[in-house]
């Protein structure tokens, strides 16, 4: 079963709906015991980076770290992906999980922020998560902070400079965009994750 981790940051119905559509057994949960039993873990997030602090309070951070240690596939979406890095300028006092190096940063003042809408991916063809997704595919973004270009980057996007739109390392995956809101392309990506 796929555990969709609920830590009180926003609405997870759309994410669940997409996995339901793909015929996957999944559940929204804030119980560390459910995360411990999951075959895959998805961490969505739409709010403020500071809201990820409640993952620690709820005992979910330990459960997620443990699952990752057991090589359970993990997918962070939006703030869920940013949390995989060490920290974010949005809330410098909040620690990220730190499985990827670097700090999430603001968009430059030269572009409107938040970055909202459909933008294109430049895809690394070796990505497992993005298998079958060609470069120039459109996905839906809505965010005010962005993850840096890093070694784990498998897709980048251009908006006031390049940033990581998708990251991948071993069984760890992250997407800055919302696959559950990105039409056929998004469903394909979630399908790839389910098939791992």
């Amino acid at each position, binding site marked *: 079963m796929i555990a969709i981790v609920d830590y009180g940051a926003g609405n997870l119905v759309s994410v669940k709906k997409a996995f339901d559509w793909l015929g996957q057994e999944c559940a929204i949960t804030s119980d560390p015991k459910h995360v411990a039993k999951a075959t895959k873990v998805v961490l969505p997030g*739409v709010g403020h980076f500071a809201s990820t602090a409640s993952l620690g309070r709820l005992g979910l951070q330990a459960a997620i770290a443990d699952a990752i240690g057991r090589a359970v596939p993990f997918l962070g979406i939006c703030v869920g992906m940013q949390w995989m890095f060490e920290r974010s300028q949005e809330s410098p006092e909040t620690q990220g999980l730190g499985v990827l190096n670097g700090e999430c940063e603001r968009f430059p003042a030269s572009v*409107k922020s938040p970055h909202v809408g*459909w933008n294109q991916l430049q895809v690394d063809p070796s990505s497992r998560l993005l298998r079958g997704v060609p470069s120039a595919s459109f996905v839906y973004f809505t965010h005010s902070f962005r993850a840096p270009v890093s070694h784990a980057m498998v897709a980048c996007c251009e908006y006031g400079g390049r940033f990581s739109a998708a990251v991948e390392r071993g069984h760890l995956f992250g997407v800055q965009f919302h696959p559950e809101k990105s039409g056929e392309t998004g469903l394909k990506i979630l399908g790839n994750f389910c098939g791992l």
Partner: protein
Amino acid sequence: MLTKRIIACLDVDGGRVVKGVKFENLRDAGDPAELAREHSASGADEIVLLDISAAQERRATLLDTVRRAARQLFIPFTVGGGIRTLEDAAAVFSAGADKISINSAALADPTLIARIAERFGSQAVVVAIDAKRSKATSHWEAFTHGGRTGTRRDAVVWAQMAEYHGAGEILLTSMDRDGTGSGFDCELTRAVADSVRIPVIASGGAGGAEHFVEVFRDGHADAALAASIFHYGFSRLVDLKEQIGSQGISVRWPC
């Protein structure tokens, strides 16, 4: 490159899609769930569903309509109309909406914007502004209650306040142009778009591809919304996007 969004709007009364001119003379245009799916398949970047039911008992069907429409929709889905409290918003999100749109209730109590944004994120809160050019002075007045009640509030100033309170986007409808097909109000759109940092969705007046090009180029809109243009096969969305794209505006195409 970030593209300009073309948004299909469904005005719903008692669970059916309707369309009128200047908020009046409503006609039946179909089933919301079916139309939402069709628009998504033909290239809409987003779907907005606005419940314009005047009668309270006709609103009761809204959550069911949202649930049915959301089930097979995998593009952003905004729902508005009659949302007055955080609880109303929460119920609409649970039914499958990604964003809610608020108008009258936000004007009555702007802290509602912040309360919804705090729980669901700013990206989920769209503040809808129905603006009408004031004849006496050169500004636009914000209206509430489906365009029936004037507020004496300046639409541009209200948009800035909405951003301050945590709105993620502004849905700006020109009441003067709504349903006329004579083009978006580019002057109004630019005045608002240039005074806030959040995205502005232009609405009211779409009649053809050239109107979208104008409002993106001259009105500085981030997105543009239309309803009747799509409902009666007047213009297919795929053709519309192709025409807009051919004039140098970047749109999501092919989808």
